[in-house]
């Protein structure tokens, strides 16, 4: 249908003076954009298949390629944008739900960028982290409200299990299936080297990675894929996934096509069958039911491991978190609406949920008001882009942060947001062996370690600048933050003053 014709979003610009027709671009593009024309002995391109992942550009030995956004345009309209029109054509042609991946790219406000960090001047002098001890180690788990002593006056050692993090950053849940074996290998190794944790996501734990168990958080989601005794025992902590920031309120669907032999073994489902995670846990309809799952996991693992509960940041997140804190969970993970995903309906990704900045501040405040903040640790995720976001999150009340998109970027992701197609040219969001092997776990691990180490240094510098030498003194220290260009309501929710106040 001619009305369904959509002009390609990107154009492949090839400098003919530089192109040597080496055909590397052709071999590198799993989308089949580049073609060698035998007649003219020249490279051509079908830009309609281009997803703008820059694989060809990055590997072109003569730098002959660049990808540009097309200037072909619909008639300008601030309301009916080209994007809005295109989406209508797509749906009118297919009757399908629009499917996207990675986090919400829409230009809604980013509160991190409207928050500024304090520094010491004259009084309370700054600390130089290169010279003086600076503590970014943190512990996740229930903190006792009081010390219990036996009849002899000895302390009763009844501390709930704690997870020690050498840096206040963990790699958040991405299942084997949504990302590749080599991605998991890199994340697992990096977590171990950094003294932190990565999260299996809901796809089970590959046998090869059981050795990284002490640095692994194993996830239990509604589909219960790959969940059995040995899996629960393998992890340092167990996370119950109630929701995901990118798609609150809906489940997941890994198409049978992606369930190859290895994923079948890891998820413990037959090859080629759809892996469906229903929207709800069918045994959880209340906080009491959640408590039941929390305790059944604790019982099954002898109370040795903290249990995390991950929820999406939604409107009533503070009340929900209060319930979760009372469910026996040791850690609450809040996933903001900019969090990534391997695939989510576009409308849900871009319209459901709230920013993690507001959710985090609201939850921390609510738990403090109710006197139960010590019963749980809080982990914030859903687009932590740099160490400043990390610091601001901790000052808003987080004990630590989860990163995933940032970690994938370190592995080579170029945020083309086409994970759902399964043809990731960078070997990350794909199960095709020829593509997976493009990601070298050795390089990937090193780059992840570099990234988190760099953030840790920056975090220490910023903390030192504020005259703070431990994460404990930064956590929930909202006096260290000021808003810029925010309304009084926004400032109230964030619990911070405006710059200049």
């Amino acid at each position, binding site marked *: 249908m001619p009305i369904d014709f959509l002009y390609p979003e990107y154009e492949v610009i090839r400098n003919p003076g530089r192109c040597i027709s080496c055909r590397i671009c052709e071999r590198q593009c799993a989308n089949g954009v580049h073609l060698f024309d035998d007649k003219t002995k020249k490279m051509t391109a079908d830009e309609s298949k281009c997803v703008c992942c820059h694989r060809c550009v990055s590997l072109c030995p003569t730098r002959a390629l660049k990808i540009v956004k097309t200037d072909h345009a619909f008639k300008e309209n601030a309301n009916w944008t080209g994007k809005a029109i295109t*989406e209508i054509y*797509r*749906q009118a*042609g*297919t*009757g*399908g*739900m*629009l*499917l*996207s991946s990675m986090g919400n790219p829409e230009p809604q406000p980013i509160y991190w960028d409207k928050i500024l960090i304090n520094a010491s001047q004259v009084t309370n002098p700054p600390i130089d982290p290169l010279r003086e001890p600076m503590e970014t180690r943190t512990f996740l788990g229930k903190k006792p409200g009081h010390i219990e002593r036996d009849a002899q006056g000895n302390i009763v050692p009844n501390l709930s299990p704690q997870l020690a993090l050498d840096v206040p950053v963990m790699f958040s849940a991405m299942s084997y299936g949504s990302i590749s074996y080599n991605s998991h290998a890199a994340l697992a190794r990096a977590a171990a080297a950094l003294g932190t944790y990565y999260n299996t996501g809901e796809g089970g734990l590959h046998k090869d990675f059981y050795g990284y168990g002490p640095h692994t958080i194993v996830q*239990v989601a*509604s*589909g*219960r894929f790959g*969940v*059995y*005794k*040995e899996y*629960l025992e393998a992890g340092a902590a167990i996370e119950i996934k109630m929701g995901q920031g990118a798609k609150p309120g809906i489940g997941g*669907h890994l*198409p049978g096509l992606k369930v190859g032999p290895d994923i*079948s073994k890891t998820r*413990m*489902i*037959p090859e080629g*069958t*759809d892996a*469906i995670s*229903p929207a709800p846990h*069918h*045994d959880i309809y209340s906080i009491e039911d959640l408590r*039941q799952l929390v*305790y*059944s996991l604790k*019982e*099954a*693992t*002898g*109370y040795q491991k903290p249990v995390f509960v991950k929820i999406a940041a939604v409107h009533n997140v503070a009340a929900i978190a209060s319930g979760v804190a009372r469910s026996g969970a040791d850690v609450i993970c809040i996933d903001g609406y900019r969090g990534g995903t391997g695939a989510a*309906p*576009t409308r849900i990704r871009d319209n459901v949920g709230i920013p993690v900045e507001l959710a985090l501040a609201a939850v921390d405040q609510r738990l403090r008001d109710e006197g139960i903040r010590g019963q749980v640790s809080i982990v914030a995720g859903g687009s932590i882009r740099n160490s400043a976001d990390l610091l601001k999150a901790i000052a808003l009340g987080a004990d630590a942060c989860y990163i995933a998109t940032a970690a994938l970027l370190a592995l080579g992701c170029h945020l083309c947001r*086409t994970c*759902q*197609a399964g043809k990731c040219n960078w070997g990350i969001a794909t199960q095709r062996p020829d593509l997976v092997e493009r990601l070298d776990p050795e390089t990937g691990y090193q780059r992840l370690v570099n990234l988190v180490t760099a953030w840790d240094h920056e975090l220490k510098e910023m903390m030192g600048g504020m005259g703070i030498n431990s994460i404990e003194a930064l956590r929930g220290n909202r006096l260290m933050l000021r808003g810029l260009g925010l309304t009084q309501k926004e400032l109230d929710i964030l619990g911070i003053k405006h710059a200049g106040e």
Partner: protein
Amino acid sequence: MVIQANLTHFKTLNEQIRACPDADITVGCCTGQRYIASGMSGRRITVHGTPGNALGAYLDGCTIEVFGNAQDATGDTMNSGEIIIHGSCGDATGYGMRGGRILVEGDCGYRGGIHMKAYEGQLPVLVIGGQAGSFLGEYLAGGLIIVLGRGVGGLPPVSYFCGTGMHGGKIVLRCDEAPQGLPRQVLVSEATAADRAELLPHLEAYCRRFGGDAQALAAERYFVLTPNPEAGYKQLYTFN
């Protein structure tokens, strides 16, 4: 060894069970203690009284026999082993179970056998002697659910939304006529000889525990619910 549960807190009771070196443990006078034998393997646990929720969750090779009724989430995410209930069981029995067998003498509450799945040699089986509540076998991905409808007088022994979202496995119902109003993901057919052969070992196990003639039971009329490949779960998406 016999452990009297009485009003012991579940945490203490389960610690006692875990610490007990015996392979054969009897829990007497059980009064709703939760999570009994969760994640356990290699033991035989007999429970007298009423165990609480999540009995045998993540079970990994134990045999549990209950002389009394079980409550909700029995055998949640069970991997292998057997749970035998001389009575009825509550909601969400066998949720997400991947292997092993649950035999229920009487009825089962809502959401029985949801999202059960088979894997390699593992085939989870849930046998319900009486009738099942609504949402039986929802999202079923694999395994076998048998509802014998004892005491129901030949009527379909299931309630609303049986097999909604089913995309694998099999639900077998003993009744005189096919159940009506099933969701479009479900196909109904009369049991074949092969279906009966598949049922027989489980009917034998049921009759061995609770009495009855398995051969005669196998010869009765059954309807088999399987996923409709035409109405698969796959929704039409448009890449954006």
